[in-house]
């Protein structure tokens, strides 16, 4: 009897025994990572479908002429900067400095909002030129649809991220402060940045 109890405790204490996380994280951080992985696969699906469309398209409009690259570069700058500031916010939260964390979170929210503003401008400009979800004036199949779906889905993620960060910042300012909460919101925000790095390279530059 004692031997089997000891065996059970030994198994539970092992990495994969069920008694502790084999991933060495809190449950909430682990769940955030699981969500990020599934979300990354959604974007991988979009980008891979786009890759196939590019391969079978006889021609593709020159993106540097269709889109305003200074604007896109500025949007990239805003998002990367907000990501760097977010990392500092998580550092401040972990170090137990909610005031500093709120300051960094606010800067992150400003970066995200600038990005969204630029994207709204870009969309309205693109639509004004005659692009719709079902047709585009350049006459290249899927050029506008892939733009709207890929940047739209990403933009919705940025919008959700800003919403989440506002909630986290408000809670931190009210003293309902959890370093784990800030870190998980930060993970999501960095993921949104990662997706944009792919979109920037493969939709706008390739």
């Amino acid at each position, binding site marked *: 009897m004692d031997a089997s109890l000891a065996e059970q405790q030994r198994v539970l204490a092992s990495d994969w025994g069920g008694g502790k996380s084999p991933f060495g994280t809190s449950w909430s951080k682990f769940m955030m990572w699981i969500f990020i992985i599934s979300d990354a696969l959604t974007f991988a699906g979009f980008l891979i479908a786009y890759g196939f469309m590019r391969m079978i398209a006889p021609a593709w409009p020159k993106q540097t002429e269709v889109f305003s690259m200074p604007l896109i570069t500025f949007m990239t700058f805003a998002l990367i900067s907000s990501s760097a500031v977010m990392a500092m916010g998580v550092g401040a939260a972990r170090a137990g400095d909610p005031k500093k964390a709120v300051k960094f979170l606010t800067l992150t929210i400003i970066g995200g909002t600038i990005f969204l503003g630029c994207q709204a401008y870009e969309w309205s400009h693109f639509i004004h030129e005659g692009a719709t979800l079902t047709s585009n004036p350049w006459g290249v199949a899927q050029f506008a649809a892939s733009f709207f779906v890929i940047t739209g889905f990403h933009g919705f993620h940025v919008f959700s991220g800003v919403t989440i960060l506002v909630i986290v910042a408000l809670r931190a300012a009210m003293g309902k402060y959890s370093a784990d909460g800030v870190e998980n919101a930060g993970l999501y925000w960095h993921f949104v940045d*990662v997706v944009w790095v792919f979109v920037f390279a493969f939709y706008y530059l390739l």
Partner: protein
Amino acid sequence: MAQAHGDQVIHYKQYIKIWGWLLVMTLLALGLGYSPMPEGLKAVLLVGITLAKIVLIASIFMHLKFEKMNLVLLTFSPLVLALILFFITFGESGGSSTHTIITH
């Protein structure tokens, strides 16, 4: 949770350094977008720069460098699988497109 304490070792200076590198690589990628090099070479260079940026963001900003290897593997393995599936079917899409269905 034990691993999370590694975070505090990171100084803000390191985040600023990574930030700088990310901006430099963004400008490099932008330069590639405008350069007249062959599509294939451009694609390889852009993929390289993108992966370098992703590794920096994931390892430092997302702290994967300080997590257990189990979590790192869990994060990247589905994406590797997605890429394998992509390359399995990618080859045939390069052929010349035709609207004629060839019958035998």
